[in-house]
């Protein structure tokens, strides 16, 4: 058995590649024409997207009656999907901002990709509130502006907070991502051979010339943005949880929601990042940049957040019992043993039980197993949102209005379409921009920083 020297940080990048090699490796997908496999993948995601578009077409033509939503269950799939996708986005900001503030160098290899995922996930999520209202062309009224009706939106409403939170989150994530890209775009500009590429890279690299007088401000801005993105990411899912928690429905009206939602969001986001990275590192030969150690660290975060989510599930039951409020108690018993018990137990097993396997080091470092567990985590997290949204609504205070929610094919088509939308963006991203930050990776290669030996 080898002993590990914990006083030394593990190298982030394995195999001591030269800076030149890193440049070539990361820029390679942008230089080569996409191969057949890429087109097959793109065809699959576009087909999924098309199915979603058909579902949306039917919805907008015939109305939201195409969905399974019924009288007590007015929030169906669109809201479930919205919360799910916003959650997926959270891992990106956690990796790029929070881990940056904590000086976790292993984040450098995965941050760019995770940030890209954040943007695409938030874009996907942003579609759903619009879809949910049924007449998306009226969405402009969500934005407060002085208008001829002298009407204002209700700033005390969590749904309006949501508009602010999600749009801010998207904008700030986008800026953060773009700022991170500037040095890389300059590097690409300097090695571009075709004129068109060179012009595009020149425009977007804003005249960057790797000057230390720029790096100095650049690093400060990056730090400021990370400092803003950190509370922002916590606020976003907090506010999403307010959509539920501020109402008085049993099972929703609960102060544990904000931390519980944030933990769940990071949990599902990490699972998604881990899933996609497993493909990326294999396809683009990034195994020594996105190392097994990095994946293992991500799995550790998955156990941590998974356990937090499990704790929240337990706490909800405890609070229901301890509060002595009958409808609250009924709601939770109904969740676990009522008509939606199947969904509840899918959620518990995928979110609480399977991730616990990551306590075993072998499993934490086995790529096929961790892949399957992370897929299950995302299934579980989707069901969590389903359970929260649907079970509480379907059986509220008034038993005479109870009804069972059954999704329709159109609901399913839109859900599938959202995956198509998300993965189409991911695929386009991998072929048009460096999915690993060239500058950040170079800065953590062994020997990249001065050793200060003269002191």
């Amino acid at each position, binding site marked *: 058995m080898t002993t590990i020297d914990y006083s030394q940080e593990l190298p982030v990048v394995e195999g001591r590649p030269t800076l030149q090699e890193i440049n070539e490796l990361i820029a390679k997908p942008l230089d080569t024409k996409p191969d057949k496999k890429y087109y097959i993948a793109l065809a699959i995601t576009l087909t999924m997207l098309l199915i979603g578009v058909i579902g949306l077409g039917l919805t907008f033509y015939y109305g939201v009656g195409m969905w399974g939503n019924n009288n007590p269950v007015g929030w169906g799939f669109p809201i479930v999907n919205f919360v799910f996708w916003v959650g997926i986005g959270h891992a990106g900001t956690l990796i790029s901002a929070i881990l940056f503030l904590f000086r976790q160098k292993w984040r450098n290899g995965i941050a760019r990709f995770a940030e890209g995922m954040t943007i695409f996930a938030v874009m996907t999520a942003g579609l759903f509130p619009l879809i949910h209202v049924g007449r998306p062309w009226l969405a402009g009224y969500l934005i407060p502006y002085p208008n001829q009706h002298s009407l204002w939106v209700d700033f005390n409403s969590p749904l309006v*907070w949501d508009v602010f939170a999600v749009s801010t989150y998207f904008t700030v994530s986008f800026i953060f991502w773009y700022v991170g890209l500037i040095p890389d775009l*300059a590097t690409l500009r*300097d090695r571009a051979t075709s004129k068109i590429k060179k012009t595009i890279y020149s425009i977007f690299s804003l005249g960057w010339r790797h000057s*230390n007088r720029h790096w100095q401000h650049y690093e400060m801005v990056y730090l400021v943005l990370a400092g803003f993105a950190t509370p922002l990411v916590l606020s976003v899912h907090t506010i999403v949880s*307010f959509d539920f928690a501020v109402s008085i429905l049993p099972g929703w009206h609960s102060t544990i929601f904000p931390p519980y939602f944030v933990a769940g969001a990071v949990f599902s986001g990490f699972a998604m990042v881990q899933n996609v990275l497993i493909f990326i590192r294999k396809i683009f030969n990034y195994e020594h940049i996105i190392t097994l150690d990095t994946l293992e660290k991500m799995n550790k975060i998955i156990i941590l957040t998974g356990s937090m989510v499990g704790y929240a599930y337990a706490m909800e039951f405890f609070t229901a019992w301890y509060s002595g409020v009958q409808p609250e108690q009924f709601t939770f018993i109904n969740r676990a043993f009522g008509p939606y018990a199947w969904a509840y137990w899918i959620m518990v097993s995928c979110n609480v039980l399977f991730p616990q396997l990551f306590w075993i080091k072998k499993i934490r470092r086995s790529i096929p197993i961790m892949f399957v567990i992370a897929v299950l985590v995302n299934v579980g997290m989707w069901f969590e949102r389903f359970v929260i949204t649907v079970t509480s609504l379907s059986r509220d205070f008034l038993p005479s209005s109870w009804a069972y929610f059954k999704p329709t094919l159109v609901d399913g088509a839109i859900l599938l379409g959202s995956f198509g939308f998300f993965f189409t963006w991911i695929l386009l991203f991998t072929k048009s921009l460096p999915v690993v930050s060239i500058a950040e990776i170079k800065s953590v290669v062994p020997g990249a*920083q001065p050793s200060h030996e003269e002191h």
Partner: protein
Amino acid sequence: MSEKILYSYTALFDTPNQIIKAAKKVKEEGYTKYDVNTPYPIHGMDAAMELKPSLLPYVALVVGLTAAISMIIFLWWQNTIDYPLNIGGKPFFALPAYIPVTFEVTVLSASIATVVAMLFFVFKFPNNVHPLHDTDYMKRVSVDKYGISIQAEDPLFEAEKVKSLFNSLGASSITPIYYSDELVNFKPKILEPKFISFLIILFIVVSGATYITLNKLLFLPPYSWMMVQDKVIAQKTSDFFGGGSGMLTPVKGTVARGFLPYKFDKKPELAAKELVNPLMPVKKNIELGKTKFNIYCSPCHGYHAEGKSRLRGQFPIPPSLHSDKVRNWSDGRIYHVITEGQNVMPSYAHQLSRQERWAIVLYIRALQRSLNAKESDLQ
């Protein structure tokens, strides 16, 4: 033909240690117009060059605070003066409810302002070209070399001295950089007609598109805003049936859906004789009966119809439905009680459909059978 002007002398180094040393040395020699170019930020370089800390965080601070304060003031004005909304008697000025929006606006403005400040003040946006671009020097420092460049503008600049300084520091290559005044110049481009007209065009396109979308596109069919609807509008003539009236008088004897009159008003005995349960005692019907019984009947009659009321004496406790009397009643007789009520028990005709009432009867039968099982049931 444009003339070549010397911009700077540059030197490339192979290791981060060398470049730190070089930067320190150049600073010591008293040069001010020099720069270090590295593929990634080198720790300790800011100290070696003795750069003053960046002022950009102050932009974030000032803009963030301004945004936060303005937002609170705006929300106060909007909610108490311009558009007060009474929500359940809560105070108009509700600080806790303003926190989310204020926070988001603060973060948004501060982040955008910091980045925009960096673009304009540090990167000198929209100036994009620079003498160092497109040189071999730039192509090396953007990959794996560490470069230093001393500008010809520097008061101490003397080509030979600079070269020998670089040599003494162990530079791997030393090159002069030239530029032509036509292609590259340092005048701020922000006031150039080209950039200004770009901004004007951008402004016109964005505002025009917004105007057209909000005021024209959104009113084209099919966006009828529900103003056009195929329905009868009160006090308006309708051509649908002819005769101008939007509604027809029903034919004599018409019965509204779900309102078939009950033939056995106050005639329990007749109901008992004539009414026949249309439902079969199959699982589906009994399940339906169970759900509805538990919702509507069990509060008074108890879950097992044994008369165990949950109303704690606030309503007369009903008799058990397992009595010989009720067991010997026909289905129609029980149906009659549900439909009409009996003494203090109210009618359930409006809450329960006919089918549901019959299903409840089936369930009561099942309950009765469970307390008075026959020998044959045990097999």
